[in-house]
């Protein structure tokens, strides 16, 4: 009650809930593309993850005897949606469920709940899954409408019962092996071809890679990461709404672009071109929606630039030299570790000093 006398007596009207809902709204185009590409399966996964995360959060709050109406701030729902959008469409339901519990319990509540988690919960959960189930997490379901797949028609994912079977009982229920319905992502393909001594340009040629398809999203990948266009729409909305600032997305993507361009200029046969790096994998999703997670990113503008640049360098390095084809999520998690340090050393200039 002592707070009552303290100014300011006005407020801009922003709230945690409004921010979380804005991010969910901004992810809707990408979710729409996911449904367009992966049909019912995408819908099942998104709904399951969102519900599971909210239920887990509710359970945690209940266990810790905290007010359960915190669930209404939308952060758990957002974590669920983000996690779903980073999953390959062919993961079994129980795997997604494990991811949700890991995200809420291991990556968020054990640290003290919203605001205290050092890592982005959705990303941390995805890493848990990737390390525990590497096969499933790198097998990309063949999407609908992908031009290079017109010759080999994939499963009809718009058919409810096919997806239902696939979702609950796995590909075996349809009498198929996992590898019969999945394919490599462009990044994965380049990495495998490299290991066989084939340069990036050649690899992309024999993959039938097209920039336009990558931009629109008609390629293999996680549910929500394929369409740069849909993600950009959401990202611009968040920028305009001032939920996120330009510092992290711009510095992140620009760093990847510049690094890729430099190496590509030196050896165009071996190193993949910059635009490919920008459109491939989870970069746009990561730069606009993961790295900008307020809790686990720096608070100061200069710190955010450093953070973005660090993410960019790590992403490109992991993709090019690392063991995994994709480096976005590792780089963000690694930079998350550096946030306290960045915040300490990159404070704004104090007036008059």
């Amino acid at each position, binding site marked *: 009650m002592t*707070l*009552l*006398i*303290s*100014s*300011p*007596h*006005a*407020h*801009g009207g*922003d*709230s*945690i809930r*409004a*921010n979380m809902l804005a991010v969910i709204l901004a992810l809707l185009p990408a979710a729409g593309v996911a449904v367009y590409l992966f049909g019912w399966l995408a819908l099942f996964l998104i709904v399951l993850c969102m519900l599971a995360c909210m239920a887990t959060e509710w359970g945690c709050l209940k266990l810790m005897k905290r007010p359960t109406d915190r669930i209404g*701030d939308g952060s758990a729902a957002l974590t669920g949606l983000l996690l779903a959008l980073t999953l390959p469409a062919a993961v079994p339901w129980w795997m997604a469920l494990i991811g949700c519990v890991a995200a809420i319990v291991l990556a968020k509540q054990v640290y003290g*709940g*919203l*605001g*205290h988690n050092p890592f982005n919960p959705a990303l941390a959960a995805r890493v848990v899954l990737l390390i525990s189930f590497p096969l499933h997490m790198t097998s990309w379901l063949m999407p609908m409408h992908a031009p290079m797949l017109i010759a080999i028609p994939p499963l009809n994912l718009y058919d409810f019962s096919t997806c239902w079977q696939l979702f609950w009982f796995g590909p075996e229920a349809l009498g198929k092996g996992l590898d019969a319905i999945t394919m490599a992502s462009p990044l994965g393909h380049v990495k495998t071809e490299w290991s066989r001594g084939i340069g990036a340009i050649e690899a992309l040629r024999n993959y039938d890679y097209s920039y336009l398809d990558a931009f629109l999203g008609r390629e293999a990948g996680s549910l929500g990461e394929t369409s740069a266009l849909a993600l950009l729409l959401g990202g611009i909305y968040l920028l305009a709404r*001032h939920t996120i*600032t*330009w*510092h992290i997305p711009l510095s992140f993507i620009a760093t990847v672009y510049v690094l890729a361009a430099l190496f590509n200029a030196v050896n165009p046969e071996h190193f993949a071109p910059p635009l490919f790096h920008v459109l491939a994998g989870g970069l746009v999703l990561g730069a606009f929606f993961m790295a900008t997670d*307020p*809790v*686990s*990113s*720096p*608070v*100061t*503008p*200069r710190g*955010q*630039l450093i953070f973005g640049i660090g993410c960019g360098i790590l992403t490109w390095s992991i993709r090019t030299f690392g063991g995994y084809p994709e480096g976005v999520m590792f780089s963000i998690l690694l930079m998350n570790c550096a946030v306290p340090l960045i*915040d300490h050393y990159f*404070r*704004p*200039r*104090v*007036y*008059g*000093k």
Partner: protein
Amino acid sequence: MLPALFERFGLNQLWPTGGFPGGVHPPEHKITADSPIIELPLPPQLILPLKQHIGEICAPLVEVGQHVLRGQKIAKSQGYVSASVHAPTSGTVVGVQDHAVPHPSGMGRPCLMIEPDGEDRPDESRAPISDYRNEDPALIRERIRMSGIVGLGGAVFPTFIKMLRDQRHPVQTVILNGAECEPYLTCDHRLMLEHAHDVLRGMDVIMHAVNAQNGVVAIEDNKPDAIAVMRGAIEAAGMDNVEVRTLPTRYPQGGEKQLIQTITGKQVPEGRLPLHVGVLCQNVGTAKAIHDAVCLGVPLIKRVVTISGDAVPNPANVCVRIGTPIPFVLAQCGLEDLNDVRLIHGGPMMGERLPRTHVPLVKSTNGILAFHRQSLYSEQAVEEPCIRCGHCVEVCPAGLVPNELAWHCRNDQFDRGQDYNLFDCIECGCCSYVCPSHIPLVHYFRYAKGQVAKIEKERAFAELSKARSEARDNRLAREQAERAARRSKVRKQHAPAADKAAKTAEKKTDEGKTGEGKTEAVKKEGDKA
């Protein structure tokens, strides 16, 4: 255009573009911008706090039952940083007692009560200085000091002190602060519209008193009429060394340091005064008061106040005698029932909530806002955990990291708080305004500042008492030694063989001497303190 774009995307945090970094745009709610200033009638009783400024409290000069004239000095300043109080009207002194004043603590402070006789007879002992341009600046400063003038923008620092001349740091530019960036408040705006001439003359007095070469009238671009009127008045007066500068509307544009940065492009270095960058800032209302004091011989006995807020039926700008009870003023604006109404003294961003309603209007009152309980944000806010969104960092005009700072303040880690520049916070409230988690950041900063001050006071006190007790110990030791020496002398005379005792005594005397030195050092310290 470019600065606005820079600001929109937070670029001014990275590369300052002339304006100050950060800031917010709260809805303006300047509902009284078009209401002319109305003179309010005299209340049945006036309550004049003896301390309405930063500095020492005043000593009353009158007794209960004494009759006073309008403008008569009724309490004189004690000490250097102080400002005297004058009778706002003629009448009888009916009491000298503690009464609630506009302060968030709601505590009573010594006040003089005056019952107006309704005749409003002036004290004419102070002659106007109409030809101030040919007067000695020191005389003008003295007049300002005697007139009890303090900064009317809310800082209430005695004005004459700001106008002292320093040979090493001559003032080049006088900035007249007409930004009025707080929402709701329009008193300075109306003053510029209705008394442009007086305000400008007041500014001219200041410029003469500090020997400044030029003047800048700073007005936010949401007051185009005031800008036009002031430009016209400057032209009419032929003041070609004064210009009007249009500032972007952005809170806290009217903060002294922020204003200086916007106008001069320079920041006032830490621990320095505006003087050190060659600038003197005065508020529009202060300039008008200076005009009245110098050119009319009238001390500070009334001021313009904005009465607004959603609970006020007839919001207005009113000219009120200082000491008028606030409920009386509100009643004149149609607000009688103060139950379930929350009063803010000042603007919504920096104003203080009044825990008690029956308080007088004082020199620092630039606005009284009355809100229904439901519509006051600070009443409803529920604090949630910080999500580290960084919005507070973006908007902080002082360049602080409010979320970290609040964290340390809340956990009573004041050293860490000072490491995060606690004392550079100007309490503008921008950070709390944007915080999505509704964290009362400014509250934590105020709390920490108060605690640090308290701790420092206690430390000083402890050191003083330690010094005192040491001095006492030394004195006792010395006295004992002296006594012993005397005794041994006597013994020597009587029994020359007892030289063993004498040796000990001598040793003690030496000790006593060193002790004496110490005592003296401590004494000197004490004198300094």
